[in-house]
């Protein structure tokens, strides 16, 4: 009797271990950041609330941008089981197209334009044009290369890899279009002048960038729009059904091919929209596609494929860990420890996957 009880307890412990570890780590991290944080750049939050708030806001705003980009990836994978390795190239091309459109609207001559010369229209039109253009390219890609081999996941992933290599190379060869600037240069677009300023938040004397807050707002808006689309429209319902059970949905007579096409177009457009936003936020250059493909993969793996809530959770976790680890790891001399934050981020990711292979909100394979 006693032996049976102790065996049962041991298995219960093992099952509860991942949750325990997760809870323990989170509590430790909170205590560290809020109260302890020895030898770090700023000290704990109780001593330096302004820096804590800034780090938190940086994390949230970056998460919003990551959500916009990764949601497209998650949508395409969730419905069509296509790992769209060309997602980063779509973002790259979208960013350069947004730059070219803004340049022609503001007569920039290829050089950085100042936000005082840019109004809201000069920012929105490039973003819309970029999203539409990449949506079109996404449609062509899906119809020509991905429609006839549904179900062959690896083959589709490889095809999208090849397409990403070709697109990235073509972008570097032709953009920026202005002939006096070297091809393959880094470029950026400007936020509208109205938002490219700081605002006083009246908490701990923090001044924060309105542009970043706008980015946060944009991410929330995209999230709400996606949610409404997926949960309140007929197409969205079909998509959710397709995510749950593709064959059954098709067997019920729904034109699943049209739905696939729509989903791919929306996914690609979201990548381009993310690209347009990122080009204003930091700028785009030939290495951006690889960086953002990786970011999308991380967000979507951690959060879980095919679920909006998962993508939100993944984006939040990734962006917050990124920002907090850089600011709150100890800096005891030149070689420790802030430089290890990238490694830390990915190790955490691996741990999440170790305990929950399908991601936080994903469905088991």
């Amino acid at each position, binding site marked *: 009797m006693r032996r049976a009880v102790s065996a049962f307890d041991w298995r219960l412990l093992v099952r509860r271990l991942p949750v325990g570890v997760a809870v323990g780590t989170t509590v430790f991290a909170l205590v560290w950041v809020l109260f302890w944080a020895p030898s770090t750049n700023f000290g704990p939050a109780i001593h330096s609330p302004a820096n804590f708030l*800034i780090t938190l806001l940086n994390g949230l705003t970056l998460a919003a941008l990551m959500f916009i980009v990764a949601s497209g990836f998650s949508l395409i994978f969730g419905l069509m089981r296509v790992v769209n390795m060309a997602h980063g190239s779509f973002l790259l091309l979208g960013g350069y197209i947004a730059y070219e459109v803004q340049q022609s609207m503001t007569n920039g*001559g290829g050089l*950085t334009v100042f936000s005082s010369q840019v109004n809201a229209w000069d920012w929105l039109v490039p973003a819309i044009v970029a999203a539409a253009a990449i949506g079109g390219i996404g449609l062509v890609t899906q119809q020509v290369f991905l429609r006839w081999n549904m179900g062959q996941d690896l083959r589709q992933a490889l095809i999208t890899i090849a397409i990403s290599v070709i697109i990235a190379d073509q972008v570097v060869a032709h953009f*920026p279009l202005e002939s006096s600037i070297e091809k393959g240069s*880094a*470029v*950026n677009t400007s936020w509208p002048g109205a938002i490219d300023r700081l605002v006083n938040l009246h908490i701990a004397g923090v001044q924060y960038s309105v542009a*970043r807050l706008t980015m946060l707002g944009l991410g929330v808006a995209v999230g709400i729009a996606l949610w409404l689309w997926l949960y309140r429209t007929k197409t969205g319902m079909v998509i959710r059904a397709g995510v749950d059970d593709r064959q059954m949905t098709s067997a019920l007579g729904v034109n699943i091919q049209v739905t696939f096409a729509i989903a791919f177009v929306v996914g690609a457009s979201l990548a381009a929209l993310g690209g347009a936003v990122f080009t204003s936020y930091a700028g785009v250059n030939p290495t951006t596609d*690889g960086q953002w493909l990786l*970011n999308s993969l991380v967000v979507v793996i951690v959060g879980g494929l095919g679920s909006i809530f998962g993508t939100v959770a993944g984006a939040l976790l990734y962006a917050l860990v990124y920002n907090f680890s850089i600011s709150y790891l100890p800096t005891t001399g030149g070689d420790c420890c802030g430089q290890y934050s990238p490694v830390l981020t990915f190790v955490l990711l691996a741990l999440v996957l170790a305990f929950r292979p399908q991601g936080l909100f994903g469905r088991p394979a």
Partner: protein
Amino acid sequence: MGRLRGRRWRILLPFAAMAIVAAAIAASSLAAHSASVIRLAIMSDCKGAFGGAYELDIGGAEAALAQYAHGKPVSSKKPSAGMTGITIGGHPVKIVGYGCGNDTVPVAISETKRLMEQLKADIMIGPLSGDEAVTIAHYAQKHPTKTFIIGTAGSQDPTLQIAPKNMFRYHGDGAQWNAGTGILAYKKLGWRKAAIIMDDYSFGWTSAAGLIADFCGAGGKIVKRVFPPLNTTDYAPYVQQLPAPSKVDGYFWVVGGTGTGPSLKAYESAYGKVDPKKFVGNLFFFFQSGFADVAPRLIGAYYGGFGNAPGLKTAGAKQYEATMKKWFGPAGFNVTDSFVYNYFNAAHALVIGLTKSGGALGASLNASLPRSIKAGYQVSNGGQVKLDSNRQAIADQYPQQIVKGPDGKPAAKIVGYVPGVDQSFGGFFKKTSPPPGRSQPPCVKHKFPWAGHIKAVQNGVITKKTIG
């Protein structure tokens, strides 16, 4: 094996394929090449962060070959289209290949092998970037019969720590390029306390070392060093670690390549518009992507040059620029760009060396390569760049400032002339000292050989007025 009925003969196809491949291999290996032709390879980057400099590098080298070695470019618009007729000292010289790196070590080494072993080049002019040069320096050590003249790589190791006997560099390294700029920040901008942000890899550290050494040497203090890794997507948390503008007199901004723009944007998100008087950078403020991405926002900021001197009004400078325009004017690139200038000087040195050695290669060529060369932007020593005992150049440097050009676009203006900068900074950097890194060099007061000898430059003319 069964009888080959019907379509079964097709199984012999793999044998046929193998035979064809074997024949192709044999043919390519038997392709005759005359033993007396000297084979030259030019190594640059056609992809990656510096891919845009490909034509500039090749154009610089080929212009020197055209001017001094009877070479004829196939196309004056596209240097990589090739060149014919190069003859040095009666020996024909053939450019056997152009190396296409991407600023990474594996591709650098595989391109080097392709050029030196498959295409059998005897001499390499290149590479372009720092890490590539470190790995090619190791390669050079193992291949002493080949000669390597560095193109524009700015890492310190190849000629200070590794220093193979068959590797030459006729321009300064990343630290040398920034010589004098730190003193300028101290004396002209009045900075006393500064923070520095640099890319977390060898070129970032080397470039920063030049700024730190000078600035601290004059008496300034670096209060904070921040090192974002390469390939950072979001610089905001790193910028957050920098002290606020009210707490420091200025920032040394040594984030380069594709990171200059994003990091400055992150700064603007945190603190508002950049004040150019509070930013001193390195060549990335103006060159490559910097021109379109960064320079328009930093009109008035100083930056360490690239060894070049745009607008210098000396006879040597005018002659160099005229030579470049003569051969590759239609290609439309900026001839004052050091990518062009450094490759030009490398090729010019090669011509002099081969002429002196009478076409002999290997150790004879290494002994014959000039230990001093007339370089367009050099003023001291009668316009001669000299090589030190590690075959590293001692050259003049020219801190610059971004100004608004007559066409409204950013332009570079020389503000200072720093004579005769050597790689060791007058003994400050030794072969045995720790290489530039996250905490090296330390911030100490030190008088460098050029302190007190930096002359102001007005309108391209070196004045007698001393800056610091």
